[in-house]
């Protein structure tokens, strides 16, 4: 019996250890990123090709699902003291406060072309390298607006009108950065009880509060909703993909629009050699290179952070609404939001 138990223990331990592989290739730069940076024809693919050509080192992506999960992964790695990647790509301004303690300081280093970036995207002078940004906005389906006799909203409070019930899709601010952007936007417009009442009423209005942008946009494209909370640059995407009759348009509100700045950073404690530090910095520098910044608009459907980059034609009609400032603190707001929408 004793042998039986010992053998069982050995088998289970072996099976568990198999799930715990580690790679220590010194010529490899590991980049932690999210879904949308990967795949055929993606920005990630172009970055890998350029990086490997320029440095001779190898680049491997670790996919973490979405941006928030990526930070969770960094937190778990830090807790265990085992960094699984050297660079994190795809952080945004809303996640930076959480991610900053887990990333490496640049000290006296600055990437080339830092000064060519727009000032409002530099949310931190140390550690966060911005590479693209966009403005959050409602995308409207003009065919559905006409079918349901709806006028595009002018302000956030218009969504509370009875005719908008079940006609728009938003994202959950706990799990989606556009969702968090929308919460920020309403916070800038409504104060105190007005804000909580707005959300209580809004929770009766939406078609769904999707966990992420892709789900929300899917509902919109499936013609279940006439409005979806997205980016102004989504309009450029439709224009580039044959929507010449402007069926899908970004709605410019009279209220301010929040923006999202995406960036990359070096993971604290991940670099074992100076060569790895050099590669990590070269990777960050590459993000601001002319080639990548030029490719960004029609790969990521975001604006490049460099002001000297010419935008493609599909971006010419994208509206420019009033913007909200980028630096803010969301923790308390998210907790309050959960109380407002609880049943």
């Amino acid at each position, binding site marked *: 019996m004793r042998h*039986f138990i010992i053998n069982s223990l050995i088998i*289970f331990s072996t*099976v568990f250890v198999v799930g715990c592989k580690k790679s220590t290739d010194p010529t490899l730069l590991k980049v932690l990123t999210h*879904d949308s940076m990967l795949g055929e024809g993606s920005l990630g693919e172009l970055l890998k090709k350029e990086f490997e050509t320029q440095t001779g080192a190898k680049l491997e992506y670790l996919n973490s699902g979405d941006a928030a999960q990526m930070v969770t992964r960094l937190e778990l*790695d830090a807790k*265990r003291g085992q960094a699984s990647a050297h660079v994190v790509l795809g952080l945004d301004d809303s996640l930076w406060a959480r991610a900053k303690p887990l990333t490496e300081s640049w000290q006296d280093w600055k990437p080339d072309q830092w000064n060519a970036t727009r000032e409002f995207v530099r949310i931190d002078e140390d550690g966060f390298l911005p590479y693209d940004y966009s403005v959050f906005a409602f995308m409207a389906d003009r065919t559905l607006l006409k079918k349901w006799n709806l006028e595009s909203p002018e302000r956030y409070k218009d969504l509370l009108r009875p005719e908008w019930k079940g006609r728009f899709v938003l994202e959950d601010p706990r799990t989606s950065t556009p969702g968090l952007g929308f919460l920020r936007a309403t916070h800038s417009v409504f104060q105190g009880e007005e804000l909580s009442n707005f959300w209580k009423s809004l929770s009766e209005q939406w078609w769904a509060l999707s966990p992420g942008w892709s789900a929300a946009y*899917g509902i919109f494209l499936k013609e*279940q909703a006439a409005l979806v909370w997205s980016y102004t640059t989504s309009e450029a995407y439709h224009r580039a993909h044959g929507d010449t009759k402007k069926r899908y348009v970004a709605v410019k509100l009279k209220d301010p629009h929040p923006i999202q700045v995406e960036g990359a950073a070096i993971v604290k404690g991940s670099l074992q050699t100076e060569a790895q530090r050099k590669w990590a910095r070269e990777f960050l520098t590459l993000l601001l290179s002319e080639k990548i910044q030029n490719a960004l608009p029609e790969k990521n459907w975001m604006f490049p952070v460099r002001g000297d980059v010419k935008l493609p034609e599909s971006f010419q009609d994208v509206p420019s609404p009033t913007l909200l400032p980028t630096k803010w603190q969301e923790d308390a707001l998210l907790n309050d939001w959960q109380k407002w929408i*609880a*049943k």
Partner: protein
Amino acid sequence: MRLQDEAIFFERARKGAALFVLFFLAIFVFAPLGRLLRETEEVIAGILDPQVLSAIRVSLFQAVVSSTLSVVGGLILTLLLTRARTYEKFASLLWSIPFSIPTLVAVYFWLQIIFFLNEFGFSARPSLFWIITAHVAFNIPFAALLLTQARMKISETELEAARTLGAGRWVLWKSFIFSQMRPAFFIALLQIYMMCMMSFALVLLLGGGPPNETLELGIYKALRAGQLDMDRAVAFALLQMILIAIPGAFIMPHLLKKSFSWSQAKRILPIEGEKRHGKIFGMLLIFISALLSLPYLFTSLSGIRYFFSESEFLFRELLRPTLISIGLSTATMVVSLTLATLSVFALQQRSKINQWVMTWGALPGAISPLTLGLGLWLLTSDFFDPFLGQPVFIVLLMSLQFLPLALRWLWEADQRDTKNLYGTARVLGANPFQAFWVSKWISWRSSLLWTGALIFSASFGELAAVSLFYSESLVPLSLQMSRWMGRYAFWKADAAAAMMILFSLAGLIAASRLAKSQPWGWRRG
């Protein structure tokens, strides 16, 4: 081997099997639960959180309403079956179909209904209403099966005697029929309540997000969606355990002791005076049963067309998740059946330790895989990165989830009326293996095949365990399908649903060809 040596050998082997099962359960059920219970202060701190209170309200409301409506619906079907003079076998076959339908396929069907209604101007949208509707429609056949089995055990002679003595229809129903069906009624009610409390994929995709979020969804969101919030996840998990454990403590011992076997049941004789319109009731029964069972099949099988028109997609996007699912489901089936077989082997001998096997083996059925998964996460995340993908944990959680079902059906197979045959073979000099082979193997083989096929099918569509321990290189078909559904890439979800159903059906057809009876005892031919 001498008889005495043989007896000692088997006694030791049974003890060994019992200890192995208890050791396994102690490590993978009690240790994670114990780890969770160490966090009780989180429950106290978290219970006043409005989001937690909201999740408790939504969980309880949907589970209570769904289970009540399901059992009432099941009772109506049972009554229809009593009035029908024919078709009961066909109806029971239809009721067993949802057993083999992966939950995700059912969810997919209801999403299509919402879109369909919306296109016709009904302004339908995901909500609590759709969560309850889908739960009820999915569980009515299950309730009907349990209740009909109970109804079939009622002695027709007793009923006939009461009728002769002048008992009216109401008195018969109240004093004879329902009073004997009452335990089954409450067992069905409680079991469906538990399943609805632990429901994951259905609430995730049909609820439309907050405020329609349950405790089960809360665990998942606190762990794998957005910011990692371990305290909140623990609060959700412990509260869910409390809400499930109370009724679960009532139901589990009953489920194992009570034998709802068609083989023991008799054909229901129509009550005198109720024979009229039997055919009409029969047709109505079949119509409702088909309505509750077949649409899932038709909707999902329509995706087969993409296998031919989109063969590139099939190889590039569908093949890998399918192969991963086959691997995980096969492993789950093997682990579950092995544990159940060892448990039943141990249970053949009455002892205190074996009573523990019976009780502990039934316990995982009352714990949500997400709760158990959270315990495993807390126990092991310092050593194993859950974000790297842990297939062993996925298999473990799924195996434990299906263990009570496997244990119950194999136990029933072992207890069928073959004791005399086994005893005779032993007296005639057969060793226990030979005696088992000639007396019990036929019944065991059927149960192993059917139970294995059903566990394989259910694992194919399982989402909860998978959602905790997946990684981007370990995305099985269920998760990939839910992502496609989440992104409303419907033709891809269509193809995934078809693939799932094809594998489920293949398993069931193989089982039906090789086995001679179903685990719930309905014999072929």
